[in-house]
């Protein structure tokens, strides 16, 4: 790698591997002139090439870093390079993508996002209307009716105006010009000099394609130029680079809250694992209630696991948590024979029934339900009415805990408080109080 003062970035012996009359050669010489005129340090330039004829040129730019990417992916590879350099590195890297019109449509989503992201990437779209390397179909950027490998491969679709498309993506710098534009090198230099995303569409001539055209129609013309109404002077949109926005958005945002540190404060009477299913309606804090139970259990020296399930939609349908509490280390986290089932809504009950859980209630197990649900021999409580639908699950958990007495209810109150649920505690305890096991119950059971 030599310094910025060199007169060409191409290897001295470089033979551009293109057909006679191909525009790629003249456009790449213009790129070379642009790089020379900008007096960039070659160590600060990465040329990222796509697959296709133009992709063969990358490594001939011996001065710069070269990356030969996958077909259509080059804008994304380049954006990753540019983002990392801007956010994590010295922020000097100039990334230049060479892509054909075929690759441009393969990676159209990458181009759109690269424009939106606005990292320092300059894309040269070499549009010669077809996929020249495979000498087959017209590209989506080809004018309608353009013939490639014979009439059968004519384009039947209107051409995609990539400049207009990327204009909608707020691209910072957009140009359309021709391969024989005498100011092409200056146009490319201006695009590279632009500090964010820039794209130049260069309308090119492919002698191989036009050879087919000659056979088919006997005429040669740059119909692409006519369709696209010719040259488009630079369109600039002033936008901050992505990294600047990213940093300003995060400035002053506090570091993530420290993770909870749960220490053993309470004792548990539990001498075997217990399995609890909490089920209700998504969006009604079912999994939060299960997590409060787990946190409380940990402060009572128990191991715990919480396996959650809900439909793909987060805010509709059922929500269900399977909680295991154990004085021993828990390995398997599924529940086959629940010791307790807490159900707060009809959606939760439907899911519990679908899984056949009521029929698999363990001996001595208990079902806690909202009183509006009809489940035989359940502990039926006004969970939703008193604790509100949002805290019905926590009330159900509290009721079960009051009933089972495997550790003090205070542990649950603490855990709820630590999760900002203090306001819910009063109503929750009002419900669970009625579930507290009375001494006469034990006497009756004995």
């Amino acid at each position, binding site marked *: *790698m030599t310094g910025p003062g060199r007169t060409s970035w191409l290897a001295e012996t470089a033979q551009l591997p293109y057909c006679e009359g191909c525009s790629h050669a003249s456009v790449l010489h213009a790129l070379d002139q642009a790089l020379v005129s900008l007096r960039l340090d070659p160590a600060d330039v990465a040329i990222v090439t796509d697959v296709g004829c133009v992709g063969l040129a990358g490594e001939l730019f011996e001065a710069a*870093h*070269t*990356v030969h990417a*996958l077909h259509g*992916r080059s804008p*994304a590879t380049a954006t990753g390079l540019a983002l990392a350099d801007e956010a994590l590195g010295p922020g000097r890297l100039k990334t230049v993508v060479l892509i054909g019109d075929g690759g441009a449509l393969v990676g159209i989503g990458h181009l759109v996002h690269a424009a939106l992201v606005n990292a320092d990437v300059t894309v040269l779209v070499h549009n010669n209307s077809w996929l020249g390397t495979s000498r087959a179909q017209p590209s989506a950027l080809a004018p309608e009716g353009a013939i490639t490998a014979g009439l059968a491969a004519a384009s039947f679709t209107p051409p995609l105006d990539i400049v207009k498309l990327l204009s909608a993506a707020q691209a910072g710098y957009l140009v359309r010009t021709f391969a024989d534009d005498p100011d092409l090198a200056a146009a490319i230099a201006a695009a590279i000099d632009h500090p964010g995303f820039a794209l130049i569409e260069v309308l090119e001539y492919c002698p191989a394609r036009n050879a087919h055209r000659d056979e088919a129609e006997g005429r040669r013309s740059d119909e692409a130029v006519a369709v696209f109404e010719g040259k488009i002077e630079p369109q600039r949109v002033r936008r901050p680079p992505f*990294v600047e926005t990213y940093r300003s958005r995060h400035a002053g945002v506090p570091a993530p809250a420290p993770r909870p540190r749960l220490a053993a404060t309470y004792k548990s009477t539990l001498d075997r694992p217990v399995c609890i299913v909490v089920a209700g309606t998504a969006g009604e804090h079912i999994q939060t209630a299960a997590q409060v139970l787990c946190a409380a259990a940990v402060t009572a020296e128990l191991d715990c696991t919480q396996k959650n399930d809900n439909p793909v939609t987060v805010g509709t349908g059922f929500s269900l948590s399977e909680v295991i509490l154990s004085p021993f280390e828990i390995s398997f986290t*599924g529940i086959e024979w629940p010791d307790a089932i807490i159900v707060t809504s009809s959606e939760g009950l439907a899911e519990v029934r679908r899984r056949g859980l009521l029929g698999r209630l363990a001996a001595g197990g208990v079902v806690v339900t909202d009183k509006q649900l009809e489940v035989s021999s359940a502990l039926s409580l006004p969970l939703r009415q008193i604790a509100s639908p949002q805290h019905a699950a926590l009330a159900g958990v509290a009721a079960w805990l009051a009933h089972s007495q495997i550790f003090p209810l205070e542990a649950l109150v603490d855990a709820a408080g630590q999760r900002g649920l203090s306001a819910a505690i009063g109503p929750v305890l009002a419900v669970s109080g009625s579930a507290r096991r009375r001494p006469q119950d034990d006497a009756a059971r004995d």
Partner: protein
Amino acid sequence: MTTDVELLDVERPQPSYDLVSGNRMVAEGALTAGCRFFAGYPIAPAFEVFHVMTEALPQAGGLAVSAPDDITALQYCIGASMAGYRAMTATSGPGWSLMIESVQYALMTETPLVVVVVQRLGPATGGATHGAQGDVRLVEFCTSGGYTIPVFAPSTAADSFALTIEAFNWAERLRMPVVLLSDKEVGTTIQRLDRAELTAPDIVQRAAPFTPVGGPAKVALTGSAHDRCGRLMKPAGEALELLRALEAKVVAQAHAMARFQYRPVSNADVVMISFGVTARAMKEACHHFQDTGERLVTCLKLETLFPVPERIIRHAAASARRILVCEENLTGQYAAVIESVLGRPVERLTKLGALITPDEIIAAVRRTGP
């Protein structure tokens, strides 16, 4: 005066727990391993990795980018890694399917990175919130040419932390993509964890021969067949040598990469082999047989799936009369891998759409027993 009891208290402070998922611990492992770039396309059941990285990376001086699709996510990671920074993305089966092209590109360009695949039920979009271990061979055979991509499989939150670091270390040592193959249950099930008890390998620093794009030394990278200087070349001679080297560098480290848990038992009736979430059920089944003495069994929990830890598989198989491989997929994907290692059939316990339970493993052990 200090008593022994007080000394013990000082050395072993009271445990302090958090409630964490495997996905969270993957993110914490990545941050510990020095990951500074995350690009992700959120997908169930992997998205908590995205959330934690997005929350933590700006504070850690890193960059977390939301990509418009899975392919872009991995391409951004590839670019960032080429520039010299540790990068990771997280996905599930549908996203992995899309990423396979880019994984091969990372392999070919010798770009280190980590892809977390949190498996869900497939094929296609399958069951987005439903667990499975069905991507084992989709990960194994993700390259044209059958190259070995290292794959680590966690069973717990603590494994998720340690194996993510291991994945980064091997990505750096071998300069290639490495997969952490988690699953919905390991990724999303919350469990108790004392961070003081976490163990982690030493961090491998990025070093030569890796050379960053944008650094003072010119770099030429290509996904096409190339010579040692990164110049396009017809696949012959030096280019073919390099294609062989891409595989040889992994195979040479197969033994060093093998992570597993195994307690040898001589003359066991059955050796049970599993990985990922099913290894948790296997552990309970193993405890059952040890506690009851009903059968002499042992179990092998594999944490490295690829390169296949052949030595320990052969060793464990040789010590037992029967081999039972347990995994949550339709056909017994890893059982087939083990059969090819041992050159003989093994017993398979497979299941589609639900966790394999300890009782089912116990029953399978009893099934053909004496």
